[in-house]
């Protein structure tokens, strides 16, 4: 068997899966996004009216602004927390076995479903929830803090809780590859601890930051359930608007919206990857 044939064989299964379950459905969505529709049916056609609708609606802008805002806030907090958790695990825990053990502990909550982890916030944050009761019983407040639940705050807390792990994993991975001798060198060169982190560690884990950011941002952009529940239905997101379309059979409009979302997210990912060449970073570090 020639080398070329072997490569083709190796690539074939993944290609087949991607074609069948990713490319074909996306093409289908793309096709539907050009269809006409009326009250009772979808009519195959080639028209840009759905895109015109999506792009001319003020709602689209509002939805994207609101979703991107959440993505930015959540990205900031997950990066901040994820970075220090990974840093602690890699550099402060001396025993590698303990470090890996602690790393696994980070993943324990992920043995349950997203939904369970999300709803576990409700009894904590509610008007009669744990935090409000604690504060009232400590006489720190007289009436329950309502911003805790069904608010932007609740949405962000929940996202950060759900998605920080996606930042920790790639950062942990990148940091583990850093040669410890660099720390000694930095110290010898007279760097402070903070300087070492900023000028030695951060540049070396760029690829981890990028991968983590892509995970977190695409997850937030594509979510609608966390927003729906934690904001008490007070917020819509790009995807929840699509869901409302589909519930009354406005498939072409939803499809156009979906294609638009894919383009926006691809552009965001493209921008991130432009900032850091992940492939080069990964190869260089070997």
């Amino acid at each position: 068997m020639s080398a070329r044939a072997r490569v083709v064989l190796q690539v074939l299964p993944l290609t087949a899966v991607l074609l069948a379950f990713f490319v074909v459905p996306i093409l289908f969505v793309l096709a539907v996004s050009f269809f006409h529709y009326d009250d009772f049916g979808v009519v195959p056609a080639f028209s840009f009216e759905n895109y015109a609708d999506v792009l001319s609606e003020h709602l689209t802008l509002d939805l994207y602004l609101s979703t991107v805002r959440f993505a930015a806030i959540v990205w900031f907090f997950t990066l901040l927390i994820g970075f220090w958790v990974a840093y602690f695990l890699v550099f402060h825990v001396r025993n590698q076995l303990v470090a890996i053990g602690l790393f696994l502990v980070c993943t324990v909550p992920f043995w349950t479903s997203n939904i369970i982890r999300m709803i576990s916030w409700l009894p904590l944050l509610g008007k009669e929830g744990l935090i409000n009761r604690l504060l009232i019983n400590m006489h720190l407040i007289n009436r329950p803090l309502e911003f805790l639940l069904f608010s932007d705050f609740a949405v962000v807390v929940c996202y950060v809780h759900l998605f920080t792990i996606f930042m920790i994993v790639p950062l942990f991975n990148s940091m583990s590859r850093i040669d410890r001798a660099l720390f000694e060198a930095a110290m010898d060169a007279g760097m402070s601890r903070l300087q070492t982190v900023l000028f030695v560690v951060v540049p070396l884990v760029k690829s981890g930051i990028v991968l983590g950011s892509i995970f977190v941002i695409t997850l937030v952009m594509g979510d609608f359930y966390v927003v729906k529940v934690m904001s008490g239905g007070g917020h819509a997101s790009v995807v929840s608007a699509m869901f409302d379309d589909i519930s009354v059979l406005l498939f072409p409009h939803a499809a156009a919206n979906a294609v638009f979302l894919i383009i926006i997210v691809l552009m965001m990912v493209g921008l991130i990857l432009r900032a850091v060449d992940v492939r080069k970073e990964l190869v260089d570090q070997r």
Partner: protein
Amino acid sequence: MQFLYRAAIDLESPKQNARRASDAQNFTRVVRTWTLALCSHQPGVQMSKRETRRRNTINASGHTPVSRRKLLKGAAALGAAAGAGVIGAPTIWAQEIKDIELRHIGVSYSVVKAVGDQAAKDLGFKVSMQNLDTSAAITRFVTQPESVDIPDLEGWQTKVAVARGILQGIEVKRIKEFDNILPIFTKGEYEGKKVSRQGISPYEAMYVESKESTKIVEGVHDWMTFLPQVYNADSMGYRPDLIGRKITEWKELFNPEFKGKAAILDVPNIGIMDAALALESRGDVTYNNKGNMSRAEIDKTIDALIALKKQGHFRATWTTFDQSVELMAAGEITIQSMWSPAVAAVRVKGIPCVYAPVNAKGGKEGYRGWCNGMGLARHLTGKKLDAAYEYLNWYYSGWQGAFVARYGYYSPVPKTAAKFMTGNEYGYWYDGKPATEEIKDPYGVIMEKPGAVRDGGSIVDRFTNISCWNTVMDENQYMSKRWNEFKSA
């Protein structure tokens, strides 16, 4: 969590100790209710799966479900006994039908496993009940019509399904109890009064001219589009202990008194009608047809909602049955648009909750009605079609009517449902009379004590006071867009 909670209450002064026990109970309750609230993560409107499963393990009379084997054995006997009894016994030979399986698909509050199991037991063929949320259901009917035998439809879904040609007409002659169906459905009138035509009333979507027709027509004809099986009138629920007075008008939903303590239903088609009822009640807007608004009417309604939201009027919105129950039970809100069984579910938790009677007055107020019915898929033929007719007729034989009555819904043929209910039950649920004994739900849980009266009174009281019906508007896409503007405001 319990540990932290103990720590929290230990900080209280000693004289508050007495409160501890009830606090702890309260807290446990809140945790439990919230946890249950969202276990069904289906975004559509439905009961939680856990709840449904629990309910499905016992059948209505509290008997354990009959085993498959016993059921099949019984089928032959049943076939032989055709025509006897009140259960609408099959008229086709049991041997031939026992391999038939009917797939009845629809929302969880209408397509109920316990009902399907009983039908299978009585009829001798298989019935599989599958639950999808409203949007997933209609999507499936339209895109995979072969995968369903009995699509469960609301009026607006019927309109879509008929136009798409996925249904076949139901022959009126073959529905035994047709003459006993309440005229709400068959003639569009009730107790001598015309029933509201705002929105899509069941009558409006009821008839076609032939079996193959794809056009719904006005007036009574020989072919039906769908057979109504369960319906009710929706209104608001409120906490009488926290509000301290009676609520009988929709405008209370927007009353500044309840700022930050109100919630509205977040299913755009229905939520906007609840909002419209409230605005109409407040005298802000007069609608030509709340169920089919013009763009200007939609704008006025959504603008009012956005203004209210900016003032912080809404604590939340809800989409599932359980969410509405938990919002109310957890004390997050004191008034919201709500369904009758959800109000009952709050009361079963020991928390006072009232279903607001919003009888029409001065051209305002009234309930928002809804009705689910069964269609016949176009691909049904031969024995399977015969079995489907048996199944449809079985729904009007009374067992199902009694079952749904016990959680507050109605049968289109109350006459037969009455045979499966005690006088006390029928008096309470249908006639609005005080209960003479305890009232139990279909699964045997005690709901009300003797002397209790159903909120909203009798069926006549409710259905002569329908203001509008669940619908999808002509300006649906515009409405959906504006509703999302309200959501993202």
